[in-house]
């Protein structure tokens, strides 16, 4: 096993009690706590407008919260030094590349900012991902621009990679290739990755941990394997369901009232629980978790 993945030292990033509201609006982040450990690949899940982009921008120090602290590689995110900056790769939702540059010019420009730069990787990805290095960026397709933005973020071999909907305009083959590249980063460098997307199947593959965002907080973060094995959906009369959950020692995550005194409860069982046959509990998928927890 890759030694990077086992080295859990200090967190790569840590947000504590972070609150952020835009002028005149309600709080988007509300007392949010979040921790990313080295080598973790975390899928960030939330409905549209839940504040995922705001959270990622706050994590990167691009937005200053009204309250709370944001640390990245042990430094305040708002004022990182050059060494910390060089360890971060970011693919924003809308990549703002310089339209009049060619891909080659763009990469040469960014290269000058970073002490480490893997030119072989950058060139390899350009040719594998079918980007003409001498064409002006304005002339590239949306998918090609997105891939170029990914290459830009990977070329300096970051220790933290933040991806905000990076695959929206990639076709399935392009997405698969990108996911393979992510896995290879994790294998080679033990990179910490945060990945927000609505394409759940992509997250299921590469993200070991899932973070569910709701109400301005990370409502739950856990390894997906554990959630699929421990979370069940119970339904029945409210009293029966409550008694059953108590007997099982289950921790309820989401409760929905149904007509006629019935309810549906999503609950997490203690690890290794074996349900007696006939227990009215349904297994769940990642999509079910997304629907209930975000």
């Amino acid at each position, binding site marked *: 096993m890759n030694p990077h993945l086992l080295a859990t030292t200090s967190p790569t990033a840590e947000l504590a009690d972070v609150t952020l509201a835009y002028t005149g609006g309600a709080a988007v982040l509300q007392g949010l706590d979040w921790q990313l450990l080295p080598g973790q*690949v975390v899928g960030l899940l939330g409905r549209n407008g839940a504040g995922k982009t705001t959270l990622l921008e706050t994590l990167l120090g691009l937005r200053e919260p009204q309250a709370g602290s944001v640390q990245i590689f042990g430094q305040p995110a708002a004022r990182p030094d050059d060494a910390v900056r060089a360890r971060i790769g970011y693919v924003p939702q809308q990549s703002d590349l310089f339209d009049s540059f060619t891909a080659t010019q763009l990469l040469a420009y960014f290269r000058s900012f970073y002490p480490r730069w893997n030119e072989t990787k950058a060139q390899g990805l350009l040719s594998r991902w079918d980007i003409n290095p001498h064409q002006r960026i304005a002339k590239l397709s949306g998918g090609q621009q997105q891939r170029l933005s990914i290459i830009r973020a990977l070329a300096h071999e970051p220790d933290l990679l933040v991806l905000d909907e990076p695959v929206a305009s990639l076709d399935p083959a392009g997405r698969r290739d990108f996911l393979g590249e992510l896995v*290879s980063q994790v294998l080679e460098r033990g990179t910490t990755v945060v990945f927000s997307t609505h394409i759940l*199947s992509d997250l299921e*593959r590469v993200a070991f941990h899932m973070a569910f965002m709701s109400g301005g907080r990370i409502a739950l973060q856990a390894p997906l*394997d554990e959630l699929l*094995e421990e979370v069940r959906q119970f339904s029945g009369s409210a009293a029966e369901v409550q008694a059953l959950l108590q007997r099982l020692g289950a921790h309820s995550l989401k409760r929905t009232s149904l007509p006629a005194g019935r309810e549906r409860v999503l609950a997490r069982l203690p690890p290794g629980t074996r349900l007696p046959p006939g227990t009215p509990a349904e*297994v769940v998928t990642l*999509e079910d978790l997304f629907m209930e927890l975000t």
Partner: protein
Amino acid sequence: MDDHFAFSIQTGSAAPIYRQLVEHVRRRVASGQIKAGDEIPSVRELALQLAVHPMTISKAYSLLEAEGLLERRRGLAMRVAPQHQRAQPAASRLELLRPALVRAAAEARQLQLPKPTVMKLFSDILDEDESR
């Protein structure tokens, strides 16, 4: 890497990916399609091939090792353990199918389908796969 192991995974399932991999190897060993001494792909190879987090693969391999299906060798590829020389008898292979059928039976009862209808469907599905 050859396609000997024919690993594949299904996303959107209630079964975690590591579990799918474990069950896949159990079935292929039980049927004798892979046997004692066959080397399995490294964590790295399989993670890249399936675009899956390497920890998911190593979790599956560790479980298979604990079950005695795979053996780990220092500095070498893991391989199928020596006691798995040939296919298991049909009776024990059938046992591997039981959990899936128990689930299917529970769903059939929920749907209140008559037994012959369900049996016919299963039989048709088996035939479909054969003609492929």
